[in-house]
């Protein structure tokens, strides 16, 4: 397949899916199948592009390299398309039955996936910003799919804090463009990553530092880094399960992607500890806030949301720990995408049966829903970092990178916080899995077919915990050379 065709498959699929879902009011079953098929096609496009990158190519498309896929873009595109396909295949989840809701979900969530895919595959800084801003708009309308006090409150916090964060990231972008225009004269090409990277060593360190502060706070808000995370637990807990899966599994990663790109530019311009210090600080604060909020958490979707803050914090920290740290951070991103999207989709199944998100009212999950419960347990244990889950290896690599770069004390603190999170999550998991099964609920699984794609996630986690596949290793090494140039 030619490269333009792959791009069309990747980006056109979800857009067409959104149009179809919005335009066809009747025949929900055919539309659903078509939308899911298009999402799967998008995943195939992402994999095709990734294969090109592994083979040493850099697929580009559109005028002036509007779309450009290098290793970092390829990894993110595969992650986004994967979770998008899962969400479109399984539907909103959580027992929402109204057909209008399902249709609205498919239309907006497809658009949401498309905006994320554009953000990670464009070679233009400003187009990336526009696309990330559009992710807020498309997803904020989906949080109150069921209008209730809680969901309206969550969507308000999400859209206001998210928009402000993105606006601050734009301040940073403007400042960086200002610096470039002052040094090299105004030209549109400055908004391309490749041009920006080449010009970076000549830029003013003071201006780029200021710009990075805005960019980190701005995109960090969207990535759920503490102390800008306050919208995240609410939005992730109140959104329909499949949207939570997309937001937690990949939206946070897309925001982190923007930070990684900018970090690579700023590291070339600024010769000092400031960018790394900021990344480390935000990372550890997020880890701390998440670990403390996980203890005694009574709401299982909020539990998962705080766990997302914990993992984003880890990835952010890893970016500051040299080449091995960047490698570990990106591997962690892939692992977290597989684990967290599965967990949120499973939480939708649990919510659909138990009709409550309170952990105290969910007991005997393993007897009531044996497969769902089993997968939930596997995902939770992988999330806290037990082998043979993939997150064990990436956490280990991250800690090693920390010790190797001389941050022993910091790593001791990180280990302590990880231990707190571990105990908190496992304690709550025990409460849900065991105990007396609720007699007022039917036992057994419904919609068994939906469990197959979720089991694939566990398989991915297992494989990544045992071996590092060659293509992935090549991509991750490429990312490290790009970031640590």
């Amino acid at each position: 397949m030619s490269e333009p065709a792959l791009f069309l498959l990747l980006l056109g699929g979800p857009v067409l899916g959104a149009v179809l879902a919005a335009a066809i009011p009747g025949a929900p079953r055919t539309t659903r199948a078509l939308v899911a098929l298009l999402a799967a096609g998008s995943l195939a496009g992402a994999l095709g592009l990734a294969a090109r990158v592994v083979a040493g190519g850099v697929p580009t498309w559109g005028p002036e390299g509007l779309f450009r896929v290098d290793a970092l873009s390829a990894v993110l595109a595969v992650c986004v398309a994967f979770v998008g396909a899962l969400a479109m295949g399984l539907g909103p989840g959580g027992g929402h039955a109204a057909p209008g809701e399902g249709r609205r979900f498919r239309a907006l969530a497809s658009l949401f996936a498309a905006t994320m895919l554009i953000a990670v595959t464009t070679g233009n800084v400003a187009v990336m910003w526009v696309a990330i801003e559009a992710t807020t708009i498309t997803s904020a309308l989906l949080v109150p799919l069921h209008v209730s006090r809680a969901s309206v409150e969550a969507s308000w916090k999400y859209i206001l804090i998210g928009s402000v964060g993105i606006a601050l990231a734009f301040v940073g972008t403007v400042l960086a463009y200002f610096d470039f225009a002052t040094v090299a004269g105004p030209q549109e090409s400055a908004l391309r990553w490749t041009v920006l990277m080449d010009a970076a060593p000549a830029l003013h360190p003071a201006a780029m530092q200021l710009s990075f502060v805005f960019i980190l706070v701005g995109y960090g808000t969207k990535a759920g880094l503490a102390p800008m995370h306050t919208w995240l637990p609410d939005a992730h807990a109140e959104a329909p399960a499949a949207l939570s899966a997309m937001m937690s599994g990949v939206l946070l990663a897309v925001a982190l992607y923007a930070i990684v790109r900018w970090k690579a530019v700023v590291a070339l311009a600024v010769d000092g500890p400031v960018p790394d210090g900021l990344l480390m600080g935000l990372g550890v604060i997020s880890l701390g806030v998440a670990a403390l909020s996980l203890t005694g958490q009574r709401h299982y979707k909020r539990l998962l949301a705080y766990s997302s803050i914990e993992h984003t914090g880890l990835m952010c920290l890893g970016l500051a720990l040299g080449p091995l740290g960047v490698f570990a951070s990106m591997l962690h991103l892939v692992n977290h995408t597989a684990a967290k999207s599965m967990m949120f989709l499973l939480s939708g199944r649990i919510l659909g049966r138990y009709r409550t998100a309170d952990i105290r009212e969910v007991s005997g999950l393993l007897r009531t829903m044996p497969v769902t419960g089993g997968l939930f347990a596997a995902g939770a244990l992988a999330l806290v970092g037990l082998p043979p889950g993939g997150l064990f290896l990436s956490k280990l690599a991250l800690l090693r990178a920390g010790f190797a770069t001389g941050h022993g004390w910091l790593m001791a603190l990180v280990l302590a916080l990880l231990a707190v999170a571990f105990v908190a999550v496992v304690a709550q998991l025990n409460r849900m899995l065991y105990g007396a099964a609720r007699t007022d609920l039917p036992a057994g699984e419904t919609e068994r077919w939906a469990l197959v794609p979720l089991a694939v996630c566990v398989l991915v986690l297992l494989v990544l915990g045992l071996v590092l596949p060659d293509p992935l290793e090549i991509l991750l090494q490429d990312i490290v050379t790009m970031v640590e140039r």
Partner: protein
Amino acid sequence: MNDAFAQLAMLGSSLVLITSFLLLWRRGTPAHVSALAIQSIALGATAGLVGYFADKHELYLVAVLLIALKGVGIPVLLHRMARRLGPARHVPPYVNTATSLLAGALLVLLAYVVMRPLVEASPLPTRAGMPLAMGVVFVSLFVIVSRRHALAQVIGFLMLENGIALLAVLGTYGIPLIVEIGVFLDAMMGFLVMQIVVYHIHQTFQSLDVEQLNRLRR
């Protein structure tokens, strides 16, 4: 010629900053909406001015868009919305007026400190206005965190965007037009979505006091 340009640009940016202080000082949604309208028109005029003196004709389009959308269109929508939602009982801000104004002044000082290296690096005659643009950004952020009325927060957000647009106009004579249009589209869509959520808030809470949105703690 350059002197006149620098002074006019400074005048325009001062107007934009002063209108953001109106938000801290005056009460009630209609006053806030008018402040936004005046600010957007001042911003549009500044953009047109820079376009004229710096010979950047695409800035005329930006100026027209700014005045039409944020100077007229959005204020009309906001006024209509405020009328439809009725004259809500007075919602006091978290921070009183005197303290707010003091905080605003300090934030402008902070903007001067933060922007110093950039002003020094810039060769453009408009550079003296850049700290004022950053001041608009900071003051708008303060408005968003210190107000309890949902519409005041929305207006604060729109002013934040104005501050960024001013920064781009003064610092680089505008970012490339195609980007500017993308940003405009996003801003419009963002505003429309916020509007939908504000209606949801009003329907479910019978008030626009965001203090009531506190169910989801922990």
